[in-house]
């Protein structure tokens, strides 16, 4: 469904993304995993053309994303990012409905759709509709952010470390509800994270990037069992070691 072919982004002589070819199937969630500077966010932004590639191309359903005007393309792709980016001068309902307004929907239709979306992300429309983003908690804000990204019923979602700024408990709850929504709607998604555990929890497949190059791509189990190189092995080892520490603690208490 989504395909990047020889995708490259150069800044001067340095390549942020270097000759990257990836494929995401219909209904699949692909995680882009890597440290800072690995090129994962740059790759994501080339899909909805927030960044234009230096070489290579991106297709969705076999169609080059360059065919549409950038703003029309983006109205069809949900986009959630770590800094949330809710508009502080608009109410929650206006934030969620903003893409629909741009698409020219009528007021009543937008109101109905916004309520539906707020319920989908487990917020109570009556309590929250007319509030300003500043009055919400971080977790609530990101739920609104997800609702806004889903407004125009996109088939493709791009998520750039969406839960990175949240505390662990809130993050866990949002991950769970996101996974539920994704299954219900059958979304195709690219999910950027630097958090190994998160990658293992949400990803159907994981693509590991390092210095702009693809190191390994495959299901979580394949990466755990057969890491392609030392970099991937180190990445995988970290959560495993942590899990073993937790295990030991639990066993110690039982004894």
């Amino acid at each position, binding site marked *: 469904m989504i395909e990047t072919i020889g995708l490259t982004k150069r800044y001067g002589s340095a390549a942020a993304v270097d000759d990257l070819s990836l494929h995401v199937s219909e209904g699949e969630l692909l995680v882009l995993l890597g440290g800072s500077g690995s090129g994962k966010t740059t790759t994501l932004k080339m899909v909805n053309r*927030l960044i234009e590639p230096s070489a290579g191309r991106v297709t969705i359903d076999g169609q080059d994303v360059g065919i549409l005007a950038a703003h029309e393309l983006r109205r069809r792709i949900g986009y959630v*990012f770590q800094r949330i980016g809710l508009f502080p001068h608009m109410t929650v309902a206006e934030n969620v409905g*903003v893409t629909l307004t741009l698409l020219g929907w009528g007021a009543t239709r937008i109101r109905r759709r916004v309520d539906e979306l707020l319920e989908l992300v487990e917020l109570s429309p009556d309590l929250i509709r007319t509030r300003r983003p500043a009055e919400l908690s971080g977790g609530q804000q990101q739920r609104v952010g997800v609702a806004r990204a889903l407004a125009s019923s996109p088939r493709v979602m791009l998520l750039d470390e969406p839960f990175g700024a949240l505390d662990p408990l809130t993050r866990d709850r949002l991950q769970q509800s996101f996974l539920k929504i994704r299954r219900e709607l059958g979304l195709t998604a690219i999910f950027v994270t630097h958090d190994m555990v998160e990658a293992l929890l949400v990803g159907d497949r994981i693509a590991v990037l390092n210095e702009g190059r693809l190191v390994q791509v495959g299901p979580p189990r394949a990466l755990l069992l057969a890491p392609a190189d030392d970099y991937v092995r180190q990445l995988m080892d970290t959560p495993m070691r942590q899990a073993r520490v937790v295990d030991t603690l639990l066993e110690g208490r039982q004894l």
Partner: protein
Amino acid sequence: MSEQLALLPGYLTAHLQLTLFALLVGTVVSIPAGVLVARVRWLDQPVLGTAGVIQTIPSLALLAVMVPALAALGFRSIGFLPAFIGLVLYSVLPILRNTVTGLAGIDPALIEAAQGVGMTPAQRLRRVELPLALPVILAGVRTSTVLTVGVATLSTPVGAPSLGNYIFSGLQTRNLTAVLVGCVAAAVLALCLDGLVRALGTAILHRRRGWTAAVLAVLGALYAYTGASFVQELRGRDGGRVVVGAKTFTEQYILSQILAGHIRDVTGAATEVVSSLGSTVAFDALRADEIDVYVDYSGTIWATIMRRDTVATDRDAILDEVRRFLKERHGIELVGALGFENAYALAMRRQAAERVGIRRIGDLTAHAPRLVIGGDYEFFGRPEWKAVQDTYRLVFGAQRTMDASLMYQVAASGEVDVISAFSTDGRIAAFDLLVLEDDQGAIPPYDAVILAGPRLVRERPDVVAALRQLTSTIDADRMRRMNLAVDQEGASTAAVAETFLHDVREERLGR
């Protein structure tokens, strides 16, 4: 007081016209320019730099420079236009800078979000960037509002009536009530307009539709009222009205009323007095037919218009040469001399002068190094001063420049020893100052002369003929008494002029 308040509606309306329309145009120009600068980064330095330079030009100079600039381009160079353009230029910087700052201060995450949800650049500007920058932009509009209301008082010397008329004429005629009324009215106006802009901002930011509509209605009504009165004035401007000009001192205010009154008496033509014009502004306005007649002084034309740096002292010779020059070069007619001179004269406290035995300028030579001389803004730059210095070999201990209306008082209190007085000023006698005799004839004659503009000469010979009747009707003593009546005794210039006109009428009937 009530006499001053009667003038308020007229001045206030004129002031509002200037301020409101300058602000409107300033805002309409600055906000798009600010958006452009925020988008095209390399424009930042040239645009903000230019606006900054304009802002540093003293406002009085900026407005005054508009007069010759407009005249050179062939536009109406005095009145509304120069003041309006100057004010627009002045209002731009705060709004422009705040628009740029407001747009630059928006969180990049919000820009990315706006792109991410699929806004076009124009939608992003309208739906996200401008609303978020609005509080900062409005702060700029408020700064401009207060600034413009203040600077608009300086429109008076370029011929646009404003609340500044109170201040300029009040300072010159020592009418502190008028000055106070002008200052208070301008301050209250600034506060009111600032309050309106602030209310509009608050209403928009809190999305109070009712409030927004109410504030907009008030603003709309103000614009409609001032706009309508402006159009009415434009319509009323033609129709054979004779415009009499006056410079910025008491004598000129009185003489302009006398000329206007006499023209009305004799020809029945409608007249309009444009007062408090800057010295060269008045001449430029006459030359361009924007005023029809005013009184100037032969020595002034000689020195500042004809740019002669030699000092001639023969009254008739100078009059003849000035008359010929004005006719040939500018089509202006020197209608006649009123009969008195208002020359520069060195004056000092009588007591101090008598103590050391000074009667003539020549007597000053030995004492000058220990004395301080005060002069008006022009005096020390004029050829007469150089002539006086050379002729009498004067070297003063210090020289101070000050406003002409303050000189006499300062001399009387002994803060300066000698001043460049005007010979017809009533305050010479009032403060018991002694005019020193120009025994070697260094100062040229300053005959007060009526000048008629080219259009008046061509189209209204009857008016010119009427003006000619005023030749030799006012001697120095009479002028001094009239000035004193206004400056010291608190009479209005209109009343003093009316008394004089009454005498003229009597005489005409008697004849």
